[in-house]
């Protein structure tokens, strides 16, 4: 499955609008009563974020597809147990994260990469051009190689460390949100993030050397 490098996604959808919780709770209540149309709206609302998190954890589109779908199905089945103590989004995230971590534990010895060639147009992306600049070891690295190195390095991290990096540095979530999703305190999130970055820094040392 070819992964396409698109224009950087707007992150505005990460911050829910003020009226969203009300609408969301209404959708959740309707879904709890078995209204699949309401649940369909909830799926559409969070599918991209859930998929992205799972994908960055697994580095495999097919696995991410299966796990994201399974997470939404499990959430629907467990919807009656959702009391609204946290936001639906956080609750859903927890399900997806737990499912992904369990999957990765089972897949421990299998590191299948399915990242293929990047879209040609993205080579003109100024961010990428800046990163793969001249006079650095990166100049010889194709985009594909760069991405594979990055994903391979991520896969070498433990699941909790990888998750923190994915949620914070890739998806742009706050420490507080991550702490809620991972059911731990903010200090733990910070220390895991620091350790994970250090690990990645050393694994990608050749590619991160500045001019």
């Amino acid at each position, binding site marked *: 499955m070819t992964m396409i490098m698109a224009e950087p996604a707007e992150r505005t959808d990460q911050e829910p609008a003020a009226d969203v919780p009300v609408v969301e709770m209404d959708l959740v209540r309707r879904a709890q009563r078995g209204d*699949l149309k309401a649940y369909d709206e909830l799926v559409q609302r969070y599918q991209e974020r859930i998929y992205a998190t799972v994908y960055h954890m697994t580095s495999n589109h097919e696995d991410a597809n299966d796990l994201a*779908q399974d997470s939404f199905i499990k959430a629907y089945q467990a919807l009656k147990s959702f009391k609204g103590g946290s936001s639906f989004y956080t609750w859903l995230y927890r399900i997806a994260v737990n499912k992904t971590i369990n999957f990765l534990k089972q897949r421990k010895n299998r590191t299948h990469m399915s990242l293929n060639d990047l879209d040609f147009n993205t080579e003109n992306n100024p961010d990428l051009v800046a990163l793969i600049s001249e006079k650095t070891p990166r100049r010889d690295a194709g985009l594909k190689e760069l991405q594979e190195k990055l994903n391979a390095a991520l896969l070498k991290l433990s699941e909790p460390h990888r998750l923190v990096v994915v949620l914070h540095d890739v998806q742009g979530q706050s420490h507080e949100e991550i702490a809620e999703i991972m059911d731990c305190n903010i200090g733990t999130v910070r220390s895991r993030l620091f350790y994970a970055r250090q690990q990645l*820094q050393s694994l*990608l040392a050749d590619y991160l050397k500045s001019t």
Partner: protein
Amino acid sequence: MNENENDFDVLRQFLKLKRQETPPPGYFNTFSDQVITRIRAGKLRVNADDYFSEAPWLLKFLHVFEFKPAFAGAFASALFLLLVFGMVYADRTDSSMQPVLQATDPSAGSFAAVAPAALAQPADSTGIIASTNPATSLQPVVSIFDSQNPLTQQVSFTVPGN
């Protein structure tokens, strides 16, 4: 911590690039439909499971078939033999019931009196007895009234010209 953040600036830029990894175009157009379809399919399966939970013996019975195909073959053979036995037994019962009916049914005599000619058959002939049993219907059988019908006489005549 800010100093540390600066230390990881390049790394963070790298990691931000991962945001650009997106699934094929149109992938999310069908994603929720697939989820809802699987939920609906799951509901149907749950209903089936509920049915089996009301009759757990049936579930166990079917599981035996699932895990031991030899049992399924044996069960099918037994059913087939039962069917054959049923057909043979029904055939026997059908033919043996006729004299019994004749002997016990008081209307049998009057019936014989009303239509003796219709019931009478030559001694060596075979007839067709209507039966509700598909296995025996339209089967030629020996008449049960052989040589016992006093109203029947064998005749002999010659066709002119022979």
